């Protein structure tokens, strides 16, 4: 076949003529192009800034950029909703540079969720400063900053760009070295606000509270500038995160080209089981067509493993060409130089296709591409729009293809496209009230500055907690102040990123004389991904885990070349510790409170690439992990007419579907909450479903489900009922036996409990 260059329109027309494609594309949606909303530059804009903008051909601002400038100059904290490619960085660069040009003592702190983003933005900012021909010093400050220039950054940096982790453990505990920053801090820029959600966001909320406390000590009252992708509650999130009132800039003035969305469902290859062809293989084929038509494409996959698999598949297109770099992988952990190379490759066209994890949802500037393929629904509307936003250069047409996987959530989306286009994106929630997180940061705050009797820590009244820390021998109360009095350094024991604080280090021992560390992983994930005999993929290379030293938290791996990957099961035991809230829905009882779970990795399976056959299995020997968290549960009387076996099967199926639906209600990753069915819950001796937060102390997610049970059950029912499979499939209640009655059981079970509700 001749690989002719085509544009998006030509390719779409061609697909319209193909029967096969017509069957698989279940829905097409177009969003028309949008004009730019431009306004004048502010009249008081510093001449040097004006000059810098002129050099970039800018003589007008988008409406939202101007609004941002005006708020900032009035010292009003604000949050701007800025989709990809809307010129968001000028929302903060302009007011910050203007203020520094007006007063050279002024300082600004930029926070980016990752080190990489800070380094990306630094080059952008430095270019702008260079064009203004003013002496303004901006630096990144992170683990990579050379010791030699650290002092200069602390004393002389007008703009310091860092990440929350560095602020938490490298800056705040040493604030006396940053006097000139904290005394003169005028702006705190929080970029990518929407990424600060869940546990991580709750931690960062406290880091910012500690930051403000230190600013007040030194007499500064900084203004917050936040930018966020589209979420439902940007202002609420910003206010909760920063404990400061915000204005909202919701209208975006940037132009956009026409966008075409295709909803692509892989063909059913086993009608009885409702099994569809693997989404990854479909994505590979679609990407190949785009590649051959020379349409620059970004492919999103949910996990690092899938990225690596897709890169491997795609690279087979170029094996015959030497030094062909036209297909590249991209995921967290790439060096700035590698990213520069990818960025450059995309600009000059040597790179045609990038496969990425959601790392690229973040504002890493790799420029805009023509097409985007989503391998599966990313889990929430906001992420879907972020990914879709990667396609579409300013005024050009863009193509976005959503390829559904077999999971319940993915199939729901493809049957209900309006969910994506008509409902508002999810809320991003944080829960600074989590007592464990609160206490962790209270310790850090007490380390940073002594607390006075009656003094509040942000919105919290804390005298009782400080007394407790005194009893624990961490603080000493002297006169009316609590002083830190311990030789430990609390910030080092507290990680903002991961639930379990101790990570497992992955050591490559392929060459025994040259063992090297190639990565790390949190404890919970390690149970199912780094058990002995697991196949661990890293940079497209397969490693087998030879030994997992759980005591020392080290996994030893050796490079291998096999045709399968591994997948492990996690069994969860659970008991209720206290019940804080209850209500009833007909005959159903709903509760909320604290629970303790015990997770044990049980067995793993070996699954062949390509066919995804199960080709072997083995046991996993690891100690169980304990988790004390909050949970909501739904319980009911044991139905008389049901055999226990049938009940177990039905409840397992329901829990499977629920697990996939939770992200529809909460903007959370599937891994943040978990659903577990119990035929005889230990605390009441009745059947129950538990939904719990997978973080010690909870992060407020299950508490919200407490109010949403009716809606959740309803959704589960209608989805399972409308699924085209016969006996139940991975898209609804999970894979079932050939002879099974699984689906029927689940439906009658759900009818039974919803009927119970109606009886009332």
């Amino acid at each position, binding site marked *: 076949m001749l690989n002719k260059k085509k544009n998006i329109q030509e390719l779409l027309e061609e697909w319209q003529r193909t029967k096969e494609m017509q069957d698989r594309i279940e829905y097409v949606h177009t969003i028309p192009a949008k004009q730019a909303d431009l306004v004048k530059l502010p009249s008081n804009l510093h001449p040097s800034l004006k000059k810098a903008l002129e050099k970039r051909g800018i003589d007008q601002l988008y409406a939202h950029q101007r609004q941002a400038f005006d708020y900032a100059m009035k010292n009003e904290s604000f949050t701007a909703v800025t989709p990809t490619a809307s010129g968001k960085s000028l929302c903060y660069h302009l007011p910050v540079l203007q203020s520094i040009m007006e007063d050279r003592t002024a300082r600004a702190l930029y926070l980016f969720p990752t080190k990489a983003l800070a380094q990306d933005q630094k080059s952008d900012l430095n270019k702008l400063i260079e064009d203004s021909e003013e002496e303004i010093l901006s630096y990144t400050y992170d683990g990579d900053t050379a010791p030699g220039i650290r002092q200069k950054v602390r004393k002389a940096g007008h703009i310091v760009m860092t990440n929350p982790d560095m602020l938490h453990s490298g800056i705040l*505990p040493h604030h006396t070295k940053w006097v000139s920053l904290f005394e003169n801090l005028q702006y705190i820029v929080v970029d990518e606000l929407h990424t600060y959600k869940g546990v991580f966001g709750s931690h960062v909320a406290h880091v910012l509270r500690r930051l403000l406390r230190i600013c007040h000590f030194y007499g500064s009252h900084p203004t917050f500038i936040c930018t966020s992708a589209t979420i439902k509650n940007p202002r609420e999130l910003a206010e909760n995160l920063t404990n400061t009132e915000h204005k909202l800039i919701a209208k975006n003035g940037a132009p956009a080209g026409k966008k075409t969305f295709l909803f692509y469902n892989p063909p059913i290859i086993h009608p009885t089981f409702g099994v569809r062809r693997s989404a990854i293989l479909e994505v590979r084929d679609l990407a190949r067509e785009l590649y051959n038509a020379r349409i620059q494409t970004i492919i999103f996959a949910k996990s690092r493993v899938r990225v690596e698999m897709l890169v491997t598949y795609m690279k087979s297109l170029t094996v015959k060409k030497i030094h062909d770099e036209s297909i590249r992988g991209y995921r967290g952990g790439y060096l700035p130089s590698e990213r520069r190379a990818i960025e450059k490759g995309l600009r000059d066209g040597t790179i045609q296709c990038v496969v990425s994890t959601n790392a690229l949802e973040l504002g890493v500037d790799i420029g805009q591409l023509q097409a985007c393929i989503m391998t599966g629904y990313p889990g929430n509307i906001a992420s879907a729009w972020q990914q879709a936003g990667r396609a579409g250069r300013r005024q050009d047409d863009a193509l976005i293809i959503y390829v559904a996987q077999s999971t319940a959530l993915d199939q729901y989306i493809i049957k209900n496209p309006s969910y994506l286009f008509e409902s508002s994106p999810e809320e991003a929630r944080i829960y600074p009230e989590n007592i464990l997180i609160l206490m962790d940061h209270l310790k850090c705050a007490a*380390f940073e*500055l002594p607390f006075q009797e009656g003094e509040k820590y942000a*919105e*919290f009244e804390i005298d009782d907690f400080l007394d407790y820390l005194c009893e624990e021998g961490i603080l*000493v109360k002297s006169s009316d102040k609590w002083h830190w009095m311990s*030789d430990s350094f609390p910030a080092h024991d507290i990680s903002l990123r991961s639930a379990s604080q101790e990570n497992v280090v992955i050591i490559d021992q392929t060459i025994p004389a040259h063992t090297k560390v190639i990565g790390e992983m949190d404890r919970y994930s390690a149970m199912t991904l780094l058990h002995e005999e697991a196949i661990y993929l890293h940079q497209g290379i397969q490693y087998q885990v030879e030994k997992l030293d759980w005591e020392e938290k080290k996994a030893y791996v050796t490079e291998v070349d096999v045709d399968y990957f591994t997948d492990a099961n996690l069994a969860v035991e659970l008991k209720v510790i206290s019940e804080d809230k209850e209500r009833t829905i007909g005959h159903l009882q709903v509760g909320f409170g*604290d629970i303790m779970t015990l997770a044990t990795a049980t067995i793993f399976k070996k699954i062949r690439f390509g066919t995804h056959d199960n080709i072997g299995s083995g046991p996993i020997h690891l100690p169980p992990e304990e988790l004390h968290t909050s949970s909501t549960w739904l319980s009911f009387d044991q139905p008389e007419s049901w055999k226990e076996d049938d009940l177990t099967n039905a409840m397992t199926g329901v829990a499977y579907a629920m697990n996939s639906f939770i992200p529809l209600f909460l903007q959370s990753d599937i891994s943040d909450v978990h659903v577990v069915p119990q035929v005889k819950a230990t605390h009441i001796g009745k059947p129950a479903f538990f939904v719990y937060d997978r973080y010690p102390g909870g992060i407020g997610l299950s508490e919200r489900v407490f109010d949403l049970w009716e809606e959740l059950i309803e959704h589960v029912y209608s989805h399972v009922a409308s699924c085209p499979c016969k006996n139940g499939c991975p898209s609804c209640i999970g894979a079932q036996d050939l002879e099974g009655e699984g689906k029927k059981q689940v439906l009658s079970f759900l009818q039974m409990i919803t009927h119970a509700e109606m009886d009332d």
Partner: protein
Amino acid sequence: MSYENKILQMKKMIKKSSSKAEEKKTPFAKPSDPAYTKDWEMAGLKRIENQFGMVFLLETHYPLETKHGDFLLGDLYNAFRLWSMPDNSHPIELTKDDQLIFYDTETTGLRGVGTQIFLNGILEVSQAGFILKQYVLAEPSHETAFLYESKLWEPNKTLVTYNGKSFDWPQLQTRFTLHKKDLPNLPEQRHIDLLHGSKRIWKNDLSRMKLTQIEEEKLGFKRVGDIPGYLAPIIYLDAIKSGNPDALLKVLDHNKYDLLSLVTLYIHATNLLCESEEDESSTTITNIGKWYGDLSDYEKGSRVLEKVTNQFNSNEAGYAHYHLAFQRKKQHLYEEAYQSFMNAVPFLNESEQLIAYIELAKIDEHRRKDYQSALYYAYKAERTLNNMQSLDRDKKLKKFNEISHRQLRLKKKQSLHGK
């Protein structure tokens, strides 16, 4: 119950209020005396009061004849005399007119703003004798008084410390910054850190640079009943909680030993640097010669190194030759440098050998114009590089390129100028 579960029990205690914490600008309130003040006074500490509160002081006087290890404290005046001689010049030199204090702290931790200094040990020098002033933080809330009383904010002092540049002084700066509202600014003081000096002098001679090890091996002093420094934070914490100062006095002893040894260490270092001490190993003298060289005092440096090359056998003098060669080169004495490199080569490790061969090749090429010989050393360098295991691949490759570049150029020159 685990820590985590205990904390989770407190969930119900969370209280929030939205009222903005108004900023109180309270004037300095003098904290009250700790309850154990009398007990600590009974133990021999003196209560001192100033406008910020109180601080405990233990003051001890030492006559100049006090013996500490192999030295008398009064030997310090000998050291001043040595430095006053016109031939002796070095960054650590001091005169009797300097406002000299030996300084050492004990702290509640290792770093960060949560670490407090609880003991300021200050040893002052005068013709009449030494005065040791040990200020003890009465309680965390009396920190302002504690810092003020140290007088370290008075300008024009010269501090002598052990690791003070990285530890004690930055800690002190942190504490002064926290109280900048009430306290005078802490000015930069002249500061001699003897840890740096010890490293220069005893590199490859002492295995560790702990002060106690130097005391035992070089200063003839052995501590008896000393508490290890890492226990100091716990002991202080216990003292202010229990009110019992007994163990704390042990910490004061520890601090006293540190300061007295600092004086004798300074005396010993001066003797070595001013060449009035002959009884040292070739390694140490070589180190000193190299130090002078690094300070661009090649004349003195060469003289010290030549002492090694004259007095010790060629094996022990290998490194002295090596460093001497560089200093000769800096002085443009190329023939001498060449000779020294040749003498050094057999006794060097491979990476230094590589450097020496290249240096020899350079002198052959640029000074002696002996391209044949230069090529010979370039090949020697190549072979040495080949055998090196320790270097990583990139660096090795880079070096290879450099060497082959040199070889090429040499061959060209050789053919141009005839053999």
